[in-house]
């Protein structure tokens, strides 16, 4: 049988076939963060003499609440910290931290053909590297740390071919939301999404990560993209510059359980209106006439309402979907010389991204625009620490989930690309960058002068 890329990676990691269509799958890398790791690490310590399969196959970090917001989250961080130290596990503490799905690729920890798991559903992000990367529960993660493998049902493979070329105003986020809207919010359940086609080949690694990041939002086990020259160049520029890997691709005429074709040239800016990521529409459009009533009641919207008429209370740029340097550069272009009209939080995906952004002066652009420029954390994305919404507050966000209460009890979330979030922050309503007036001359002076004048206004 002609095999898909996923089939090849899977087949190369099966230790043993198990009853009921299950397999014991070898795991090359376990990523461990402070929210989901402690109970598993403690169980291994208590019941299995603290023995890990191979500490070198683990990388740990503090990412969700960084730094700790209270004693409970400090204990979570401290538990991972002492465990990593005791076990000699590579560890990214606060200061050197970042969202796990940003840190792992930027340091070159993931390479094509690997298997990666983490107690975090967005581990699918790493499929951008041609790896089989998936989210799992705490106990399964503990099992992988103990025994070097996972018990998995072999997923089916859905080929998602994106033809043509994305238009200039369309981003990887718009493509990710379009894929979910096309196959459905649960349409990927039981599948791995294998992305192919000219529009995929043209994406940068960061854009591929944005796309794969949202595979879980279609219910898919993960997404995967074959490595190519773009991948090689990206990995060569990482601090560990890994070389010990080889690129695999699907066989020509590989068999897929399902195939979906999307015309890349027809993708445009999209924003979510509902309470799952599949409930989205072009930003120039309206809330659908057949929209789910429960979603609309929660979101306080009505069918037919133009999306551009929806006023917002907060804007957030960040999360493992859209917080890398390319995202920040794109958002900064929109903010440059303009002012936000609602509270706006910009949270880089890692401290390395933060430092790079500051070298490029992006932090000045954000702050001159009136946005809050923060340290790296998952932050507002999961409503757990900073930037939490109050009931009824409406936030446009570059993150990946708009479930009820996701960013705070009763809070409402509209998912969009960073440039759409930036434009919306400026206009105070859902908006695309195309709607913005050119920035005023006075505000497009050098960033240093802008910073001085902003300070003068405050004084």
């Amino acid at each position, binding site marked *: 049988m002609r095999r898909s890329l996923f089939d090849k990676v899977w087949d190369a990691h099966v230790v043993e076939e198990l009853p009921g269509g299950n397999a014991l799958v*070898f795991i090359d890398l376990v990523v461990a963060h402070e929210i989901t790791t402690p109970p598993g690490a403690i*169980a291994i310590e208590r019941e299995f003499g603290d023995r890990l399969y191979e500490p070198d196959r683990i990388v740990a970090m503090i990412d969700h609440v960084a730094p700790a917001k209270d004693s409970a989250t400090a204990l979570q961080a401290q538990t991972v910290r002492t465990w990593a130290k005791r076990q000699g596990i590579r560890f990214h503490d606060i200061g050197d931290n970042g969202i796990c799905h940003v840190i792992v690729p930027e340091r070159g920890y993931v390479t094509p053909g690997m298997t990666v798991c983490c107690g975090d559903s967005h581990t699918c992000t790493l499929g951008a590297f041609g790896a089989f990367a998936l989210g799992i529960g705490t106990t399964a993660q503990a099992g992988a740390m103990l025994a070097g493998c996972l018990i998995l049902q072999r997923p089916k493979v859905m080929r998602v071919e994106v033809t043509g070329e994305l238009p200039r105003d369309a981003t990887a986020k718009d493509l990710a939301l379009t894929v979910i809207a096309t196959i459905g919010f649960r349409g990927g359940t039981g599948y791995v999404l294998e992305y192919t086609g000219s529009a995929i080949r043209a994406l940068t690694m960061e854009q591929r990560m944005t796309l794969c990041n949202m595979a879980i939002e279609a219910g898919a086990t993960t997404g995967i993209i074959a490595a190519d020259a773009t991948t090689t160049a990206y990995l060569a520029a990482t601090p560990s510059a890994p070389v010990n890997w080889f690129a695999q691709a699907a066989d020509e005429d590989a068999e897929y359980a399902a195939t979906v074709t999307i015309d890349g040239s027809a993708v445009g800016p999209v924003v979510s209106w509902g309470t799952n990521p599949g409930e989205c529409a072009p930003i120039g459009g309206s809330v659908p006439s057949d929209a789910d009533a429960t979603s609309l009641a929660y979101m306080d919207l009505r069918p037919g309402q133009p999306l551009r008429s929806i006023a917002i209370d907060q804007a957030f740029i960040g999360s493992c979907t859209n917080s890398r340097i390319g995202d920040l550069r794109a958002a900064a272009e929109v903010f440059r010389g303009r002012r936000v009209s609602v509270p706006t939080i910009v949270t880089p995906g890692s401290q390395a991204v933060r430092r790079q952004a500051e070298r490029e002066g992006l932090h000045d652009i954000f702050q001159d625009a009136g946005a809050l420029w923060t340290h790296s954390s998952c932050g507002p994305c999961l409503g757990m620490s900073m930037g939490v919404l109050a009931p009824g507050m409406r936030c446009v966000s570059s993150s990946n989930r708009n479930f009820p209460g996701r960013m705070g009890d009763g809070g409402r979330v509209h998912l969009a690309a960073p440039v759409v979030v930036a434009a919306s922050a400026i206009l105070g309503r859902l908006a695309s960058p195309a709607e913005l007036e050119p920035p005023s001359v006075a505000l497009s002076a050098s960033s240093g002068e802008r910073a001085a004048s902003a300070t003068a206004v405050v004084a």
Partner: protein
Amino acid sequence: MIVEGGVLAIARANIDTDQIIPARYLTRIDANGMGEHCFEGLPDGAALLSSRPGAAILVTGENFGCGSSREHAAWALKDRGFRAVIAPSFARIFLENAYTNALVPVALPQQVVDELARAQHIAIDVAAETLRADGGEPIAFALDPLRKQFVLGGGFMQYLAAKIPSVRAWEAAR
């Protein structure tokens, strides 16, 4: 093994893990004490729970447990007293977590689930893979034959620990 009890029906698709247990409660280093926050993310969660105090069987809609990987969702349901979830389908990670925590995941067609949602009491024979609603005729369902043993006897981690020698041998020959 018979898992039985009163029924709480939440006839809604796509109940995600943020609704089962919001992120603000994911601050423990153990799996305990999550039950008091179960369904706090569901706008009418508290009212639903108090309408059926002591319910042990949850009957709900498609794609239950979608969203984040948090095993806390299974822990919260267990701690709240639920022993089984009956739905037309489950999200993958939730399904895996349910098995490892002996929260019996029963997948049945939508119309059967709709009927079960009207039941007062459901008894599930896990080994036989059948259930009875209010003493009615048995209804068959299917469990993952491997993971079923973790529901019946636990031992997920022990099962993997026993595999370590073959994993090491496989890796050496890789």
